[in-house]
């Protein structure tokens, strides 16, 4: 029976028992959700990447703290003129945690595995562009794309594109073997995962000996765990309402960064009356973003006017298009033939930004005559009814994938927006690699979806991190779902 597994010393418990003395080279990081398993290429659950991305697994390229793409296992690369052939030269002397060497073979194995017919990779679409992967020599790989893709290097930095080894692929879900600065040590299911420093790491060694990830889903338990100093850091703290208490407590410091999560009021563009742009515009003007941010997120989160991350250089502030103006909203509804408003459904997924935001939004829409029937769904039901079934009027969800404005170019996507000009714009974007041209195209794209009032753009999801004073090197923002501990240390 699994008693032995439980018996393995859980770092957290030892820590607590021996007090803070050892804390200097160890750290306990708490987060809300526990990863279902430990294969980042086998599921979409963000928690897997949070624990393993760049700590245990590394990809060819890698996200830096500010979201820019920096070299990973591929030290440098040349791109052919027509932008279709990428030749990566790999870092030397890189070994996996089980001692096997990491070379071009492993890169080819990982990419072929992700794009294979029966691949269970959640982001399989990132690899569709790859035509061939050739091993030139142990340290060089040549990847040929079917057509140029400006964001290929960006895609290779995703957690789903990390490099894995055929030797250790079989039980990767329970014992992940990567090339990162930390090695996987132990997993007490339902409670914690511990990582230890990888002594023979090829790059700059990690400053900490041991990192323990503790999973506390209940917001009150989270608050008390931090207050009782059971944990050193709590990433994406679930209860923003408690932050003021941590701010004025000298033992702690609060870091509020932003994420790639554009939180939107998605409208089903194919359903009466939401197919009429006037109605969508009316709804956008009925929304008071600041009230939702204050009410639901206790002030955390920056209002957005379009589906783009405000901390990104190419962001255009279009909140002006949808100012909170209930009178205008009523006029627009009247013009569209709905003087006494209409009834629609508001289906909400579990996160508190959706549940609380939904209640506030419902009262704001009611003020202009739009009645909403709220139904709180679990993720499985939300995916089935809203995302796949498209059986909804309105819903609130935060899209946390980085740079995902291209979803507006997919007519079969759940809010069913079909605009040929926008689709053409997206094709052009994927073909251009020149940065200035790309940012001009991105600006145009943001303006189209904002003026077309495809969805009600609410706010960019913030990520509050509460840490003990003295912890250094934590990421402020979350350009991707990751808790990169490689650069973290105690002062």
């Amino acid at each position: 029976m699994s008693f032995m597994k439980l018996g393995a010393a859980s770092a957290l418990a030892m820590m607590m028992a021996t007090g803070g003395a050892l804390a200097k080279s160890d750290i306990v990081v708490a987060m809300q959700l526990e990863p279902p398993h430990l294969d980042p290429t086998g599921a979409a659950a963000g928690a897997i990447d949070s624990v393993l991305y760049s700590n245990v697994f590394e990809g060819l390229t890698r996200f830096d703290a500010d979201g820019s793409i920096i070299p990973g296992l591929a030290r440098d690369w040349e791109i052919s003129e027509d932008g279709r052939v990428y030749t990566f030269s790999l870092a030397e002397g890189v070994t996996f945690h089980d001692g096997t060497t990491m070379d071009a073979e492993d890169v080819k194995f990982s990419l072929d595995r992700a794009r294979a017919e029966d691949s269970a990779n959640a982001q399989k679409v990132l690899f569709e562009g790859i035509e061939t992967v050739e091993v030139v020599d142990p340290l060089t790989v040549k990847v040929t794309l079917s057509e140029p893709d400006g964001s290929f290097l960006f895609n290779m930095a995703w957690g789903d594109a990390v490099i894995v080894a055929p030797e250790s692929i079989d039980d990767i879900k329970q014992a992940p073997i990567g090339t990162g600065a930390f090695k996987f040590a132990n997993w007490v299911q339902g409670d914690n995962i511990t990582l230890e420093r990888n002594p023979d790491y090829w790059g700059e060694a990690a400053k900490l000996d041991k990192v323990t990830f503790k999973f506390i889903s209940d917001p009150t338990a989270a608050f008390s765990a931090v207050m009782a100093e059971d944990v050193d850091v709590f990433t994406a703290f679930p209860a923003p309402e408690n932050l003021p208490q941590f701010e004025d407590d000298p033992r702690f410091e609060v870091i509020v960064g932003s994420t790639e999560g554009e939180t939107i009021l998605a409208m089903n563009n194919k359903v009466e009356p939401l197919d009429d742009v006037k109605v969508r515009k009316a709804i956008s003007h009925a929304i008071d973003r600041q009230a939702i941010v204050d009410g639901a997120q206790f002030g955390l989160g920056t209002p957005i006017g379009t589906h783009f991350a405000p901390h990104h250089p190419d962001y255009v502030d279009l909140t002006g298009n949808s100012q909170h103006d209930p009178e205008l909203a009523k006029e627009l509804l009247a013009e569209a033939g709905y003087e006494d408003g209409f009834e629609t459904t508001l289906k909400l997924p579990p996160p508190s930004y959706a549940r609380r935001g939904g209640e506030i939004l419902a009262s704001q829409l009611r003020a202009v005559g739009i009645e909403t029937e709220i139904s709180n769904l679990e993720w499985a039901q939300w995916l089935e009814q809203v995302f796949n079934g498209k059986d909804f009027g309105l819903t609130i969800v935060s899209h946390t994938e980085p740079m995902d404005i291209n979803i507006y170019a997919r007519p079969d996507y759940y809010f069913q927006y079909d605009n040929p000009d926008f689709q053409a714009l997206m094709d052009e974007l994927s073909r251009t690699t020149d940065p200035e041209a790309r940012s001009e195209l991105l600006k145009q794209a943001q303006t189209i979806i904002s003026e077309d009032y495809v969805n009600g753009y609410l706010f960019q999801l913030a990520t509050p991190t509460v840490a003990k004073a003295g912890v250094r090197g934590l990421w402020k923002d979350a350009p991707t779902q990751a808790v990169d501990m490689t650069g973290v240390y105690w002062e």
Partner: protein
Amino acid sequence: MTETGFLGAALRSRSLVLGAVLTAVFVLAAVVSFAWVPHDITSMNVPDRMKGPGGAHLLGTDHFGRDILSMIMVGARTSIAVAVVAVGIGMGFGVPLGLAAAARKGSLLDEVIMRGNDLVFAFPSLLIAIMITAVFGASALNAIIAIGIFNIPVFARLTRGAALSLWTRDYVMAARVAGKGATRISFEHILPNVTNLLIVQGTIQFSLGILAEAALSYVGLGAQPPLPSWGRMLADSQTMISIAPHMAIFPGLAILLTVLGLNLMGDGLRDLFDPKIRRVGR
């Protein structure tokens, strides 16, 4: 026990009076809430959120700035409605099953009903309630069904037990001599003599229903917004318990006092109906 005697004894029993008063307060609050509520619970004004009790808001405001007293009054409607209908389902199905099982004691029907009861008792009620709401979606109606199902075996078993002892009585034999069939006897003779027991158990199941509804909506599976419910108010208040304790205390107190009132009433009624107690006299 002539009519006046019944009322006299009722007033003398302390727990019955206290229980009735407590329950009446909340039933009244629910009824009044249809017509009047101190503050409109649909409108939110975030600026004056989490205000302590006193001033404009007698019991303070919640995390959206809504008046807690009004929320509790309207929440009473949900809790009481769910519990009443759930007990109704329990009695509606349970009592006839119990009567039928007793009328044909030892027959296959009796065995099937009793085994069925044991089976339903074996299922962990809260878990099944959660699964029901997972299948049909979380709503007050599904909470009613989930809680109602687990009331059925309680009433079936209670009715069967009481009916079995009545079937041995001479006046049932007299009715059989008068040619009456089992069903007719069950409703003319057995049921009237079991109603006292059902009323007492009804109040107890009513209070358990309120607790169950609160538990379900606490995990988010009871009544959905904008319909307020005490359980969900507790769940919402949980994270702010250290900065706004009043948000957690008042809904909890509402649940406590309603359930306490019902249980006291149940006790009072049990003593009132129990001839043993009455003969010895308080």
